[in-house]
């Protein structure tokens, strides 16, 4: 899917990307700072009926939510992690291997621990209120 959207369209976008990506447990959100990763995850989790506070996990590294639709959701933010080793030590791999839904912001910080099959989401900035989302549901090509 490639789609241009603004903030008012987030709710319908959340529904669409859920339909497209729900067969994948690990979702990787690639985007520069300020593009709206947390905001998109927020809309997605609201759509999935999460009742807990959905907020940025930059500080906590990992937030856990429960959804009547998706079960346990781990909302992770690897912004502050340096590399794969730190991600493993911080329990990120455990969360991925738990086979629960994992929504990961800043996955580029530790790509090596991502599983083979991920739902990849790219957000690009178009202008202050507009973003372009590109999703690809395919195997992640690991670096050799």
């Amino acid at each position, binding site marked *: 899917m490639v789609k241009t959207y603004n903030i008012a369209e987030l709710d319908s976008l959340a529904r669409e990307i859920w339909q497209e990506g729900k067969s994948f447990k690990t979702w990787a959100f690639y985007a520069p700072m300020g593009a709206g990763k947390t905001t998109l995850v927020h809309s997605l989790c609201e759509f999935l009926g999460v009742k807990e506070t*959905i907020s940025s996990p*930059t500080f906590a590294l990992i937030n856990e939510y429960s959804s009547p639709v998706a079960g346990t959701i781990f909302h992770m933010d690897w912004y*502050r992690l340096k590399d794969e080793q730190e991600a493993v030590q911080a329990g990120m791999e455990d969360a991925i291997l738990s086979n629960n839904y994992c929504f990961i912001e800043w996955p580029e910080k530790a790509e090596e621990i991502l599983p083979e099959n991920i739902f990849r989401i790219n957000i690009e*900035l178009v202008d202050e209120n507009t973003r372009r989302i590109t999703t690809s549901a395919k195997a992640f090509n690991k670096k050799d």
Partner: protein
Amino acid sequence: MATILAIESSCDETSASVCVDGKILSNHIANQTVHEQYGGVVPELASRAHMQNIVPVVDVALKNANIDLSVVDAIAFTQAPGLIGSLLVGAQFAKSLALSLNKPLIAVHHMQAHVLANLIDDPKPEFPFLCLTVSGGHTQIVKASSPNELKVIGETIDDAAGEAFDKSAKLLGLPYPGGPLIDKYAQQGNPTAFKFAEPQIPELNFSFSGLKTSVLYFLQAKQKEDPEFINKHVNDLCASIQSTIINILMKKVKKAVQQTGITNVCIAGGVSANSGLRTTLTEWGEKNGWKTFIPQFQYCTDNAAMIAITAYYKYLQADFVDLSVSPTARANW
């Protein structure tokens, strides 16, 4: 007499405090400077440092209070929220100590403790009071009806206020930790020089992600015209960003006062060290007829004294936990 030894290890500071009948006798904090080179707290480094620090920190806290371990009546620790590896070190130490001394154990919620830090020194707020708790990971408005009745009535739906400071600083190219630097440069700048977006979020909740985007776009546009824009205007930029963050916070505090009718207003958490926020709270208090309270700086950032004072009120209610208690990274109140 109730003598409480409290331990705080939720993030990157190992701290211990001794409190006797609600009076803080010591509050010793070991900072982990190792994180600066990484641009943030690294969980594994943090828990290792806690392990190295915890015994000496507790020793110093007892010594500074001139209290022997044998007269301690209860052991308190931070149970949640925080980095799990860090919390585990404090919890395990506290449990072991409680077991060996055969004393009751008190589990404290870190965010409740931030609020009750306002009860450490005189003048203390009378109940009920409102507290704006602002830190790197949290932004909340809490209604405190008694020491044991605290309710979150507003919180952030995305970034925390401290995160807004740190990430804005990152966009400005300032080194970590950026929050205190923004405060420093802001003091030389004009807070109305530039205008950034303020969110329209219902009720008493906060949002800071829109501000981040607004700053990002503004800087991109200006730097196209002049690559030196940030360097030339860093003071005004910092002052304008800081003033926007403070406005977002204070407008919701004002709304909370209007909704609850409570006019005792406190602040807490690491960001309450921000000089602009402290001044603005005092000014708005004078203008609107609120009584305002700001804890000493050492009780604003993470510290064990706030755990001790919270534990004291729990001790009075005999609110103890058994040794099966575990820390959790996130917890409801």
